């Protein structure tokens, strides 16, 4: 593990321990009430979900055309985190929507695009799990297609129908709302980086083990 890992893990743990206090002390939003507080989890996980998808797509493209196995391991690790943070996003979203829109699920643009992105990353993992030998190249191709697909999904779902609080809400939030949100976002980002590093390391060690196995056999 790199030197920064343990200190960063401690920082991340402290931040996650402190964040409930910050969130609890944040002002009570007048129209939404208590349920608005779920945004402190929903938004950061959605951002990390998106970040993971970008990392996976770029690493896959580089693996496909350069053939570097390190990029493949990075893409795999990122895809798993996309699925995890995707679940958090997709669970917290409807919890809020039930209160705000009166329904658990709305076919709004960002909800639907997130669901489709999540589906692609699950398909990616299924392909790696059950695709047999050579599936890493195929999975990389899928990730590349999934990335190219994002604007198409977004535009098509957007014109299909839409009702979602727009992105411009966030920067205009009063600081008292914004501070806990950014704090929580940084905590999630740290968690993502730590988990990604750990997962990549696991694959690295597996690869080293394979090499050792092969050299002992020779």
């Amino acid at each position: 593990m790199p030197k920064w890992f343990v200190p960063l893990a401690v920082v991340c743990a402290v931040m996650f321990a402190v964040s409930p206090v910050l969130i609890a002390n944040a002002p009570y939003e007048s129209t939404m009430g208590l349920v608005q507080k779920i945004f402190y989890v929903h938004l950061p996980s959605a951002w990390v979900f998106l970040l993971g998808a970008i990392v996976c797509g770029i690493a896959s493209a580089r693996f496909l055309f350069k053939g570097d196995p390190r990029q493949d391991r990075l893409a795999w690790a990122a895809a798993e985190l996309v699925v995890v943070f995707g679940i958090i996003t997709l669970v917290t979203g409807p919890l809020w929507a039930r209160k705000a829109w009166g329904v658990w699920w709305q076919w709004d643009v960002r909800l639907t695009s997130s669901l489709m992105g999540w589906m692609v990353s699950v398909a990616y993992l299924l392909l790696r799990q059950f695709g047999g030998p050579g599936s890493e190249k195929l999975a990389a191709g899928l990730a590349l297609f999934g990335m190219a697909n994002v604007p198409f999904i977004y535009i098509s779902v957007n014109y299909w129908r839409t009702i979602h609080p727009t992105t411009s809400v966030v920067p205009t939030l009063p600081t008292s709302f914004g501070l806990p949100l950014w704090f929580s976002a940084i905590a999630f980002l740290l968690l993502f980086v730590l988990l990604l590093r750990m997962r990549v390391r696991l694959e690295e060690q597996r690869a080293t083990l394979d090499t050792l196995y092969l050299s002992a056999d020779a």
Partner: protein
Amino acid sequence: MFTRIVWLVLRKDLMVEIRSLEIAYTTIFFAVSCVLVFAFALVQEGRAPTDGAAGILWIAIAFSGTLALGRTFERERQAETLKALLLAPAARPAIYVGKLLGIIGLMAVTEIVLVPLVSLFFQAPFFTRPLWLAAVLLSGTIGFAAVGTLFAAMLVRARTRDVLLPVLLYPITVPVIIAGVRATAALLQPDLDAGIIQFWVALLVCFDVVFVTLALWTFEPVMTD
């Protein structure tokens, strides 16, 4: 050189298909069965749901297209002929384009049967604007087949290819389905809003251009070990 290989592969596929007609018959019959299942599920008191026709048409196209893709590449797998194609010194993207055109042809034949059938069963006036209909169907089919041909070709080596093909294909082709259904539904409106159809067809054409380019670009690295 490139077009010659494309033509060779396409002609070979057409010849094989015309000899047996296996894929054409089974795909068309499957598509018809699909439409019937939807009819029994959705038609109530002898009335078809309004606007349902567009969705049913595109679901039948997507399902039968998946079947055609699977069967086409199963045929190339049986005597390992796909390996023989890859062993030839021909440009691999040309092989992809040849297979793609064959799939588009098969799907087009299926659609020729499907469209009148859906129109008949669900009282949908598809044929009032034949040119727009053709544009929507063609651009949608190209998009679906472009992604499908690449995925089916790369899954030939995988043991679980039958189930993985739809699992990978449908999330990626969601824009095609949405655009196809919306544009077809717009066609069925009594007063045509050309702007809406134009928007969806433009989106489909962009999708086609992006994904055909991407597939041509990735076919070589994906098919080499």
